[in-house]
């Protein structure tokens, strides 16, 4: 069915399952993003200091240190001795954060926490409404090169290089500590995504996302196209997915292949689960590769090809 003749994306899911069911993960995600930003803003805005600091490093309730492992890696590349950070909290904080995301999926950070995600999502919404062209689409792996470049520059200049320009920090730190002209970089990302490159920043270039993707390479929490036999090729999931290439291997895999979305690029945003009128997708763990197309396999314990 061509784009002109079929109903808008997600319309069918709303008709079948109702509005809430067709938006639940989107709404939960916005709540989560607001929650994490709110935690940080509660201090400076309301004087309630549950969390101090910002996303690069924070202290929760005066005891729990959390640090961005990618920023921490840059300090290591810059030559700051890691031994100095053992007693001071950054090492412990980075390890805790790394472990959590390694477990639940690195790019959960991108879709559930990162404050730039609503910005690029807004850009994409407007991009679609205005019917703009795809624009420049660099390879998905480009972000890995950018990540390597950031670490190389950190090592060469002896400074935490990405924090000079990181739009995530500019926005998050800006809201909490004062923005200055940091908004220009955030606006830059918005315009880049809107006019120059559809889903360009988060989907192709951001080195932070690349790092978290690598971190979650073997994560447990996964989306599975478990009910893929029911797929009627409406393409709604491909339309809403910020990393559409991750869906095909799971959804279009022949019988006997894993229905799990195992790509490190998947952000576990759950939007595909929302918009599918046939309820093909669901959240599960990486060892659960049951599918509806071979019910026999579902009964076999220890089916762990995905691992």
């Amino acid at each position, binding site marked *: 069915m061509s784009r002109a003749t079929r109903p808008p994306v997600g319309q069918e899911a709303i008709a079948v399952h109702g509005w809430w069911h067709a938006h639940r993960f989107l709404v939960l995600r916005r709540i989560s993003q607001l929650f994490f930003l709110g935690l940080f803003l509660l201090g400076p805005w309301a004087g309630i200091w549950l969390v101090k600091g910002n996303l690069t490093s*924070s202290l929760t309730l005066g005891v729990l240190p959390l640090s961005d492992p990618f920023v921490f890696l840059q300090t290591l590349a810059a030559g*700051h001795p890691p031994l100095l950070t053992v007693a001071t909290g*950054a090492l412990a904080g980075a390890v805790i954060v790394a472990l959590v995301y390694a477990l639940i999926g690195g790019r959960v950070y991108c879709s559930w926490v990162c404050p730039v995600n609503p910005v690029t999502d807004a850009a994409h919404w407007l991009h679609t409404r205005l019917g703009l062209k795809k624009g420049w689409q660099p390879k998905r792996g480009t972000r890995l090169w950018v990540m390597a470049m950031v670490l190389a520059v950190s090592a060469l200049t002896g400074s935490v290089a990405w924090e000079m320009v990181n739009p995530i920090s500019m926005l998050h730190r800006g809201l909490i500590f004062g923005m200055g002209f940091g908004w220009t970089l955030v606006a830059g990302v918005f315009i880049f995504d809107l006019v120059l490159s559809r889903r360009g920043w988060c989907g192709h270039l951001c080195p932070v996302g690349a790092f978290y993707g690598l971190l979650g390479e073997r994560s447990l929490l996964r989306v599975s196209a478990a009910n893929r036999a029911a797929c009627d090729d409406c393409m709604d999931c491909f339309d809403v997915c910020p990393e559409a290439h991750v869906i095909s291997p799971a959804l279009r895999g022949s019988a006997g292949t894993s229905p799990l979305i195992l790509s490190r690029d998947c952000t576990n945003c759950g939007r595909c689960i929302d918009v599918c009128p046939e309820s093909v997708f669901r959240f599960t763990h990486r060892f659960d590769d049951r599918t509806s197309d071979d019910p026999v396999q579902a009964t076999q314990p220890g089916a762990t090809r995905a691992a």
Partner: protein
Amino acid sequence: MNVPFKSGSPIDRRRFLGDAARAVGGCLVAGTFLARMATDARALPAQALRPPGALDEAEFLGACIRCGLCVRDCPYDTLALAELGVDGAATGTPFFTARDVPCEMCEDIPCVAACPTGALDHGLTDIDDARMGIAVLIDEEHCLNALGLRCDVCYRVCPVIDKAITLEVEHNARSGHHAKFMPTVHAEACTGCGKCEKSCVLPESAIKVLPIRLARVDAAEHYRLGWEDRQPLVDELIDLPDRLPGPGTDNLVTPGGFEPAFKLPEALK
């Protein structure tokens, strides 16, 4: 779908090399700009002072992750994170401007304790050892004390009074018969807290805290200060008791029969 290339075929290899070359080229361009920014960011403006215990600027920029925990734990709101395009310090790094809010030199140094990476050196335990900068009396033509008045404010507010700032008595050549009490900073005791700069009564401070790199020079190695190198100047100097003229001694006239030019009052004889 694309036609799948056989792995290892020349076309596959050529495409891979082409893609890699493009990516490396792009990263070289972007990386050059980023490296340029990173090195430019080291140019810390003279008025921006780092918190106590901050590593040398070059090291600091490799260790500070711009989290702002030092800012949060500063009880006097002295510290702030530099905002892009507004403050001169590297974006997101903590600094303070002495003339606005100086460092109050807390004994427990909460900013250092809060630093998660050691960009503020946790080895700093005595705030008097902090070296955030050095105060310099920058305008002797307007400093009230230098004009012969007794303002003394910078001296009075100094947390390390009489060590970091002393008042040195000098002859006031303008009036010919008064003294000038020159505020004089001693670098070995000055923490660079900026209380003096904050308190100067002039519209703009006559005494300013400058970064150490601007305010201090290294002594030339080839100059030897004889009076410090060899003390005493002559080895095995015999220290004889001093016998000074004065009441209570029998030596009212200097030895050698010298008669003072002035007449001693009767009572002292």
